[in-house]
């Protein structure tokens, strides 16, 4: 499962980063040296996956679409992760009324549908129709608002748990200042689950962007390729037997989301030893665990404390 996820995610990243090299045509290219591509052309040698109703090459649009998806993920996660983690840390460690207020706000945001928020953002930023930057930010900002409570809650829960651990108390006894305890002792121990939420959120980011595009609040085809937009334009094609315009962008969404989600879920399993599969061993295999650090056990300790728990190694 992890392997499949990693392969899909790696493909997604490769396509996103090297889109200009891999794609046969540009995302807004309508003609080449041989003249116009023509609309709704069947798959052929020149256009392996055919062309869309607008006359774009489907294969190139799908490959360039990965790039737009990656943009949204990066912007949304970068915007939300710092603020979410910081607020979660403060709220969990300091507690009191601040914590209660922040939790209530986070809960309220949870109840808000992200797609609706994204539409509002799209309208606010660029009046509904937009270029690459406007479209990406509309999706990313609405996702940020949704994601901050997620990071907030996870970090807050970890922080409240870690706060009562003995090593935090020992830092308090030492006299370390509150910021020092928060950032040196608590923060690094609280971030274990972040990669998991990060991957799961990434797949949600792609879905939101695609949803926006499908609803018509996406990015103009002249400024970037976007899977949701292409799907939207292919609705009428489906009934007339033109399958290639909708199938490939749809599959791209499915595989990108599936790949990233699989990586996330596998990370979850890897982090939890109880979910990790283990091969059984032969009864006689292995050495008896050395449970003693005293060299040779406590039998005949080599003189007082000096030989206590093994020589320096």
């Amino acid at each position, binding site marked *: 499962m992890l392997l499949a996820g990693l392969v899909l995610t790696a493909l997604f990243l490769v396509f996103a980063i090297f889109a200009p090299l891999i794609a046969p045509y540009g995302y807004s290219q309508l003609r080449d040296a041989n003249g116009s591509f023509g609309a709704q052309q069947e798959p052929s040698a020149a256009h392996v996956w055919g062309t869309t109703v607008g006359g774009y090459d489907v294969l190139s649009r799908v490959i360039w679409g990965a790039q737009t998806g990656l943009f949204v993920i990066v912007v949304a996660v970068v915007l939300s992760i710092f603020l979410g983690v910081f607020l979660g840390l403060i709220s969990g460690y300091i507690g009191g009324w601040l914590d209660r207020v922040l939790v209530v706000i986070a809960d309220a945001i949870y109840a808000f549908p992200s797609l609706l928020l994204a539409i509002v953002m799209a309208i606010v930023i660029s009046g509904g129709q937009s270029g690459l930057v406007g479209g990406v930010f509309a999706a990313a900002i609405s996702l940020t608002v949704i994601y901050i409570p997620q990071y907030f809650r996870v970090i807050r829960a970890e922080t409240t748990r870690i706060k009562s651990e003995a090593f935090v108390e*020992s830092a308090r006894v030492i006299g370390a200042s509150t910021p020092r305890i928060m950032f040196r002792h608590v923060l*690094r*121990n609280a971030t274990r689950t972040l990669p998991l939420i990060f991957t799961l959120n990434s797949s949600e980011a792609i879905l939101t962007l695609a949803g926006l595009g499908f609803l018509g609040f996406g990015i103009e085809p002249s400024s970037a390729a976007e899977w949701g937009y292409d799907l939207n334009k292919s609705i009428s094609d489906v009934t007339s037997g033109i399958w290639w315009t909708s199938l490939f962008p749809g599959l791209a969404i499915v595989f990108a989301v599936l790949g990233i989600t699989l990586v996330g879920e596998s990370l979850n399993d890897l982090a939890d030893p109880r979910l990790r599969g283990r091969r059984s061993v*032969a009864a006689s295999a292995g050495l008896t665990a050395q449970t003693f650090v005293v060299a040779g056990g406590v039998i005949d300790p080599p003189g007082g404390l000096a030989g206590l*728990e093994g020589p320096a190694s």
Partner: protein
Amino acid sequence: MSVAEIRDLVVSFSSDAGAVKAVDGVTLTVEPGEVLAIVGESGSGKTVTAKTILGLLPETATASGAVILSRSSGGEVDVVTLSRSRLREVRGTDVAMIFQEPSTALNPVFTVGWQIIEGLRAHERISRAEGKAKAIEILRQVGIPDPETRVNYYPHQFSGGQKQRIVIAMALVLRPGLIVADEPTTALDVTVQAEILDLLRTLRDDFGTAIVLITHNMGVVADLSDRVAVMYQGKVVEQASTRELFANPKADYTKSLLAAVPYVGQGRAGAAARLSGRSREVVEPLVRAEDLLIEYPGRLGRAGFRAVDGVSFTIAPREVLGLVGESGSGKTTIGRAIAGLTRATGGSLNVLGTEMVRHRERDFRKNRVDIGFVFQDPASSFNPLLTIAECVAEPLIVHKRAGDVKAARGRVDELLEAVQLPKSYGDRYPHELSGGQRQRASLARALALQPKLLIADEPTSALDVSVQARVLELFAQLQREFGFACLFISHDLAVVDILADRIAVLYKGRLVEEGTGAEVLGAPQHPYTQRLLASLPVPDPVAQAERRENLRAIRAAEAAS
């Protein structure tokens, strides 16, 4: 015919680091009506051996060899090769288990009666009324007062000792020939432990039940068992009758294990020597508590819980005060209040010249240089992401004695050497050290700033006996060298006796007795101290039998008054 026979048992676990052999060729037999104690330190394979008897090994384990159980219905079975459904038949009817932690072994959302009947109905068709009658009967037998009403109570309505009685009742209800008790008294206070041990003894005497007792407490072994098997690194190193083993241990490991067990009376000479060495002049105490009150706030509209109730004591410079009490007696709360981790709510608590009642952290922070704290659990008292050197350097950096970890390293190395750890251990992470090593590193961290006062909260209770002995020895040595005053908190009278100049006994938040070790342990005045002392099992079966009679007399006197 023996109840259970373990022949050449080998158990291996698969782990991240490859295969680990936990039990290596163990052969044991348990006779009817016999208590066989399996002793050993953590990781010696004693619990794995016992769990194999019930077929309770996790999926990652592979077992070979044979565990032959004789069934109450006649016949024999080999647990190792038994199928799951047949195992279920055997569990409960032929062999049952008593767990270490009674509060987690009972399901909190069902009544205890329901849970006992559940065990009955799993094995025989029985009507509800019959089941209840049986449950009441068995509760009466394990000494639950008023079982007709109590059978409908939920687990949280019972005390810890009573819960363990109920767990024993559940194990007993189908009259198995063998009961496996895995550290049955470790989670309990000493006085309650004595009662549970009495109950287990009646099981053996009245019902003829054989018991496999797994424990690391040599006092419990001496008190209850008939025969002892000592395990070390997955092997049985010695097997003998209890009297024989304690009087005349053969294996070197057994000898050193017995020598490491602390006993009351050990520390008297040391305390006297320290007392004579100390100057007679009257000095201002470092800590002075007067009528100290500590309350935890209750829920809305409810009164708070008073953990410490009018306690007065002082700790002079260079003095070790031992604080003893049961769980819930408030001893840890006092330690935490002195370190400023818990708020003192009333009376007066003066620590190094700062009044701790309604104190402000800002005013107290300057005093933190002079206070060290050693925590109970060595596993969690270090930040798992920092190396030992970084952890030990932390107080130096916080108080600006060193700029960064590198600059502090020289001092850190000195400290590690002071606690007898090799310098190179500074580069290791906490999980790469054993419990004893970690506790010594914890000591190094607490001493980094050369504090005037050290608070040690049960520093050795998570350690094995032999490791505990070494840590205590080191502790005493460092105290002589560095000359810090110390509040040593423990539930173990024998441990406190080794170190403390004076001993204070807490009972339900009140200080019931205070004095030198000789006074408190030699001639206890308060009935609670007397009972506490009498309940402490000593690692000597002959002496323990006598003490048992003593305790019975004390209890009878208490009941009469």
